[in-house]
């Protein structure tokens, strides 16, 4: 009796041991050679020590063979800074992390179901050759694909992170496509709707997975990737950092962290950062770092659409989402990609109860034939839509320029800011004085004996009308502030709006101009 008992228990331990060994020593060594960590090393970094609980360790592939320990995907939950999160982590050492029937239909699906049931964040660690073609080729494909529908149901309910730690080819690239945050490891990660071999067969194009879909493409050109990171460990650390600013679900507030930075401290050094001449450039990230809690700035999409800066920080310990124009890049002008980047970030903050702070210094939207061909009206409208729609606390600081529709999308007065203030150098206007003279006084200038002198005089007349005290005199803005007061005003403004409630007419959903 005793022997049978221990035999049976022993068999369990042997089965566990086999599957914990992943694809075996040789495959693990290869994984390390590529500069990558194994799936279990990654999970150890993702979760607080000894908090990981695995579900489905004993899974095999659909044929029950011994070739696919855990069917190539490790699933379960653990804690990130003491809060539960769920993981679906592909194991490249097992059949190149390919997605098999057991792993997808039972393991990954169960994680999606439970994460949503408990309203906890879900993290994909992606390192996979894609669908296991030997299982998926043929018309049983008809029954697949509902994972994306699940993701759409989760969207705006629980945070979704797709960490790119290796390839992510074919349809599975829609996992990051739908996720809230997509860090990419430089050199080893890639994503593409069709992998290199499929591309060759479909179109004849010769390209590698890396050249087609590495971080140098997605974090710099396409905007599909968010943050490029150097190593697997950096990537996982970035995931943990991202989650630290968000609540577990849309029914909670983001976690408060005591940063020890005084809420009422005057902001020092802005006079050295921001030139009074509105035509001169500066790095707005220096303003962000000076105003918000020390070491709390976490920038997102840093290397794409650099003319707008978005990211999280803390204001008196509370998480905030920052949208700031960047005069250092393209003069801070808004274009299609900048509007797209800002709109998506604003909607994420609004979905997850993160207050928004707009730091405005915008010469307007880019104009001209090039941007019209791109559909800038359609892209700009996304940002207009997102800012209007957002009902989280919203604070607007007009630092220098606030021109045209740029003023609107940066949460101008018409977009229900809880507090809107300006610095003394602020220029709020539909357009600059030169443009206004060209339009309003064109005939007068042409008829003048000295057109240039007349033009200059008219420009000065209009310039005098562009000052923040005119807007403050009409009480269209709440105050003009000393830049040193910016931190206190933002923190007080968010606190003022904590019990904010905005009721709007019932609708199924709006029709955002995507």
């Amino acid at each position, binding site marked *: 009796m005793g022997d049978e008992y221990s035999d049976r228990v022993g068999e369990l331990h042997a089965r566990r041991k086999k599957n914990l060994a992943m694809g075996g020593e040789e495959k693990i060594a290869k994984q390390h050679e590529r500069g990558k960590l194994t799936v279990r090393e990654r999970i150890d970094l993702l979760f607080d020590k000894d908090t990981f609980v695995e579900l489905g360790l004993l899974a095999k592939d659909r044929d029950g063979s011994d070739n696919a320990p855990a069917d190539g995907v490790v699933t379960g939950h653990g804690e990130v800074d003491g809060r539960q999160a769920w993981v679906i982590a592909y194991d490249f050492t097992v059949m190149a992390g390919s997605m098999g029937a057991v792993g997808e239909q039972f393991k990954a699906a169960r994680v999606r179901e439970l994460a949503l049931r408990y309203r906890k964040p879900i993290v994909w660690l992606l390192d996979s050759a894609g669908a296991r073609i030997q299982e998926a080729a043929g018309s049983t494909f008809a029954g697949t694909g509902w994972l994306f529908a699940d993701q759409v149901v989760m969207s705006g309910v629980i945070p979704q992170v797709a960490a790119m730690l290796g390839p992510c080819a074919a349809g599975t690239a829609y996992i990051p496509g739908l996720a809230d945050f997509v860090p990419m490891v430089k050199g080893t990660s890639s994503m593409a709707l069709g992998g290199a071999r499929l591309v060759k067969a479909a179109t004849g194009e010769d390209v590698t997975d890396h050249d087609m879909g590495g971080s140098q493409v997605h974090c710099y050109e396409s905007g599909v990737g968010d943050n490029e990171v150097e190593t697997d460990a950096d990537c996982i650390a970035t995931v943990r950092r991202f989650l630290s600013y968000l609540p577990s679900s849309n029914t909670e507030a983001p976690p408060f962290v005591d940063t020890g930075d005084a809420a009422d401290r005057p902001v020092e050094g802005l006079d050295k950062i921001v030139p009074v001449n509105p035509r001169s450039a500066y790095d707005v990230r220096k303003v962000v770092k000076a105003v918000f809690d020390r070491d709390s700035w976490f920038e997102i999409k840093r290397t794409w659409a650099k003319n707008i800066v978005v990211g999280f920080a803390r204001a008196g310990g509370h998480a905030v989402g920052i949208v700031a124009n960047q005069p250092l890049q393209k003069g801070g002008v808004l274009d299609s990609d900048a509007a797209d980047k800002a709109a998506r970030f604003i909607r994420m903050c609004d979905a997850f109860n993160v207050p928004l702070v707009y730091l405005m210094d915008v010469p307007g939207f*880019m104009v001209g034939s090039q941007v019209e061909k791109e559909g800038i009206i359609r892209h700009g409208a996304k940002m207009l839509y997102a800012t209007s729609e957002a009902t989280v606390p919203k604070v607007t600081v007009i630092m220098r320029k606030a021109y045209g529709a740029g003023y609107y999308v940066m949460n101008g007065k018409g977009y229900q800011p809880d507090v809107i203030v300006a610095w003394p150098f602020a220029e709020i206007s539909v357009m600059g004085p030169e443009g206004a003279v060209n339009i309003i006084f064109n005939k007068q200038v042409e008829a003048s004996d000295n057109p240039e002198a007349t033009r200059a005089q008219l420009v000065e007349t209009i310039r005098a009308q562009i000052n923040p005290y005119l807007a403050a005199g009409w009480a269209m803005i709440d105050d003009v502030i000393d830049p040193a007061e910016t931190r206190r005003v933002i923190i007080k403004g968010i606190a003022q709006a904590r019990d904010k409630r905005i009721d709007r007419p019932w609708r199924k959903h709006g029709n955002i101009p995507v």
Partner: protein
Amino acid sequence: MTEVKAELVGSVWKVKTAPGAQVAEEDELLILESMKMEIPVTAPCAGTVKEVRVKEGEVVKEGQVLVVLE
């Protein structure tokens, strides 16, 4: 050889370099004027200025080559 291109439509406000000049990464090569802003154009890498293809006051298109570095 590295071509430095205009990131947006604008006019050349100031040229701050000349053929033969040695430049370091991030050095200002010229300043464009567009959308009420002075927009500095900097060297993407260190090198020698081989050509300056624009002059002050000239209107440039997005993607137009401004300076060639070697």
